[in-house]
């Protein structure tokens, strides 16, 4: 009974934290998916400087910890006079980081499409752009659903990293309560929240995969 009351008491601030987590989650997805897709295509551009730049970009953002990127974008930019609010800085770091991962997935997806598809489109007279939008990308999207799903699950968990910017997301709220009230209950509640989110993500991706079952 005592526990139950405690849960009721702690729930509102935790929900507040969860809202922050969810906001970061959705903002990151909405921006990094299209950005990463464009970057993945650019990575394969025949215009070499663009392809090289994208390769460098992906290396940079996959080759350093997201935590470092968060700190760098917030504090690093501050030292050169660019002051971002903490939350927008966090979103920016996440979008840039996740776009790099998405770009790699899209690039690999594009390269996994049989060369015969390009040739068939080519002899039928489709332009490169038409080939990309009508033939290649629709098939790529089907193939990248599982790896994108993995990244989205990672995103749920990575969202906790923004605590370093002292942003009160779900886990930070829980930790504060744990320290203050000397109980583990907030951690358990946080775990339930994360499991709930990842379960939803998993179900969603299962559903999307199923949607694409009509062809092989």
């Amino acid at each position, binding site marked *: 009974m005592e526990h139950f009351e405690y849960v009721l008491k702690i729930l509102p601030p935790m929900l507040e934290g969860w809202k922050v987590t969810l906001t970061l989650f959705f903002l990151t997805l909405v921006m990094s998916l299209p950005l990463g897709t464009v970057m993945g295509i650019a990575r394969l551009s025949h215009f070499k400087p663009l392809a090289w730049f994208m390769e460098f970009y992906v290396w940079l953002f996959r080759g350093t910890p997201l935590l470092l990127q968060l700190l760098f974008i917030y504090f690093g930019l501050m030292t050169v006079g660019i002051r971002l609010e903490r939350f927008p800085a966090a979103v920016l770091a996440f979008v840039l980081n996740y776009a790099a991962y998405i770009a790699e997935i899209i690039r690999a997806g594009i390269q996994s499409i*049989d060369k*015969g*598809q390009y*040739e*068939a*489109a*080519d*002899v*039928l*007279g*489709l332009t490169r752009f*038409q080939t990309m939008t*009508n*033939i290649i990308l*629709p*098939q790529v999207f*089907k193939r990248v659903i599982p790896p994108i799903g993995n990244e989205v699950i990672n995103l749920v968990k990575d969202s906790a990293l923004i605590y370093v910017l002292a942003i009160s997301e779900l886990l930070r709220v829980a930790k504060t309560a744990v320290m203050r009230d000397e109980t583990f209950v907030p951690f358990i509640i946080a775990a339930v929240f994360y499991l709930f989110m990842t379960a939803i993500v998993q179900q969603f991706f299962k559903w999307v995969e199923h949607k694409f079952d*009509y*062809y*092989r």
Partner: protein
Amino acid sequence: MYMIRALDIYKNFGHLKVLKGVSLTVEKGEVVAIIGPSGSGKSTFLRCLNRLETIDKGMIEVEGEIMVQNGPDGKAVYSDENRIALIRRKMGMVFQNFNLFPHKSVLENLILAPMLVNKVPREEAEKKALELLEKVGLKKKANNYPFELSGGQQQRVAIARALAMNPDIMCFDEPTSALDPELTGEVLKVMKDLALEHMTMIVVTHEIGFAREVANRVIFMDNGIIVEEGIAKEVIDNPKNERTREFLSKVLRI
């Protein structure tokens, strides 16, 4: 009147000389079969004709339009892209591996290019597509997806898809080589019907029986050159060249 004329085509892949001066003229309504051992450059030659590969030297002309010719330095110079696009539209291509678009239904495979490239209205494109599917005996499969079809059916769809663009010339690169033996007949039948309608055809094939019966002319390629050519029946029944003889005896023994 010739449909396509290729003169003295040279093509290297790096240091590998794949085509070493191949010439071919195909008349309107003619069916030409290209035979020869694996690796002799048959596919490469066919692919050069519709610029899936670019040539290093030589001239290719389609219905009087020059696609590529030698420049002053003796190296091939291609015409501008718009012109090439128009020339290539006269040619249909059928691949060994069908290369149907797996995410599109059979009907969608057929109407895609007419609608996107030729700006044909959907209704008209569908009408034409259904006629073509009827012709290749697959009207019932219009709404199926490629993975639901057998290899032979897929290849017949691929032929119909190429025909949907109203080509003047149809190129086939070993259209039955990826098929189980019992499925080659249905594809060859469709091709034979096309030949009877006087479609101009260039067919790379190992089906010697088909070449003998359907082709007007046979080209025997070996090692990047045309070793022997002539009236199909004559070349196949009485090859003059030693290498042709050897090749045919090997193929026909199986």
